């Protein structure tokens, strides 16, 4: 297990033992801004070295996969888990999107083992943040229609905010615009994409004088952030107890299943062993920055403690500890 994971455990233990340890909010925000920017820069610098044409089909596959995963998760949540339509869609959206920090820990894992990987992989983080969220929302709205046949709207008309015109105080058109805004201009997408573009324009030499901050400190900052995530994740356990055993099982089974899909897609589009592992990790990870923020606005009827509870309380720690080495094994089998 990578030592950064020990910081996560420290956070979990401290929280469960009801320690007063608390990281200041501003530090939490600073660390997450740093990680997003640094990952973006790292990918951007590498992007400069590769022809876009090689990357394009891989990128397309990653986007398509992000958009497909929620479609697989939804029926399980809805019909096996008996969750409501919106809750199923919201959780599906989290799993369609990705966790930047899980990716970062995966990167550390791959680097430590000296496994070669496509160094532009951070690009895929940026690309896979959004599609899953959008699909989850559309799913919720389309299927809500079917469940409310008495609604005056035409069935094909996907609407945000459900049947009330004034939901969130805005008409439907405005709602979609607000949502697009929330998703594409949210902190994480702006910083990831911004970092990518800056890294791309500036290139390795341009970024070099900044590596003291953005690259040399990366692992330490990741450790600190995981300490904080441990505190937060342990605080979500109570939510999960209330939610019952299904979600707990889902939180372990879904990433395992999705990692197989991710690894298969990665292998199919020609990624190296490291790249395949990382794509498996992305598929297996569940968003807890971009998705919660967007869904709170887009699907306010969804209970955030369910989606965050399972994504942060189960899947995140599972991926950190058992998942990542497992996905590496899966990738190895494929590449064997």
């Amino acid at each position, binding site marked *: 297990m990578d030592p950064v994971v020990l910081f996560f455990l420290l956070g979990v233990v401290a929280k469960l033992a009801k320690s007063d340890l608390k990281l200041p909010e501003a530090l*939490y925000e600073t660390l997450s801004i740093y990680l997003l920017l640094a990952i973006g820069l790292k990918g951007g610098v590498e992007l400069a070295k590769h022809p876009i044409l090689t990357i394009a089909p891989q990128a397309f596959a990653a986007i398509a996969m992000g958009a497909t995963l929620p479609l697989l998760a939804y029926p399980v949540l809805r019909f096996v888990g008996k969750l409501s339509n919106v809750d199923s869609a919201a959780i599906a959206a989290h799993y369609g999107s990705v966790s930047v920090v899980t990716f970062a820990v995966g990167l550390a894992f791959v680097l430590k083992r000296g496994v070669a990987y496509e160094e532009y992989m951070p690009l895929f983080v940026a690309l896979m943040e959004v599609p899953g969220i959008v699909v989850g929302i559309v799913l919720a709205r389309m299927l809500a229609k079917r469940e409310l046949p008495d609604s005056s709207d035409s069935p094909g008309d996907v609407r945000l905010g459900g049947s009330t015109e004034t939901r969130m*105080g805005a008409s439907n058109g405005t709602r979609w615009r607000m949502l697009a805004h929330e998703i594409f201009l949210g902190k994480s997408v702006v910083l990831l994409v911004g970092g990518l573009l800056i890294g791309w324009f500036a290139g390795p030499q341009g970024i070099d004088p900044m590596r003291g901050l953005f690259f040399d400190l990366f692992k330490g900052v990741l450790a600190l952030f995981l300490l904080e995530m441990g505190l937060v994740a342990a605080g979500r356990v109570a939510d999960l107890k209330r939610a019952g055993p299904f979600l707990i099982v889902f939180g372990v089974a879904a990433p395992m299943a999705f990692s197989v899909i991710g690894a298969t897609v990665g292998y199919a589009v020609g990624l190296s062993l490291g790249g395949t592992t990382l794509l498996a990790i992305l598929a297996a990870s569940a968003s807890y920055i971009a998705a*919660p923020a967007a869904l709170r606005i887009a699907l306010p009827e969804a209970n955030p403690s369910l989606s965050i509870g399972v994504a942060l309380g189960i899947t995140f720690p599972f991926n950190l500890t058992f998942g990542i080495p497992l996905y590496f094994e899966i990738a190895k089998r494929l590449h064997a």
Partner: protein
Amino acid sequence: MQTHPKKLLVVIGESALEKFLVRDIKQFGALGYTIADVRGGGGSGEREAAWEGDRSIRMEVVCDEAIADKIAAHILATYAKNFSLSLFFNDVSVVRREKF
């Protein structure tokens, strides 16, 4: 000192609501607002401000009673079902009545 009665509406809720609340109170004719970052607990559990989704804000609006009523009704109808949210009214007095 010559003062004028006004209503103070205090709304405490998830910080995801901030921009919607600001937009709403302006739409209903309030001329200003003040927001502080807070933490707390209530019917929907503890909100410790430990991470993004766990933050709360406290918004204060001084305005005419009629406007305060409309804002409160709108907020309750629009957000109260799906968001952690509390609100209450208070009687205050101001000097420069035209400001509020």
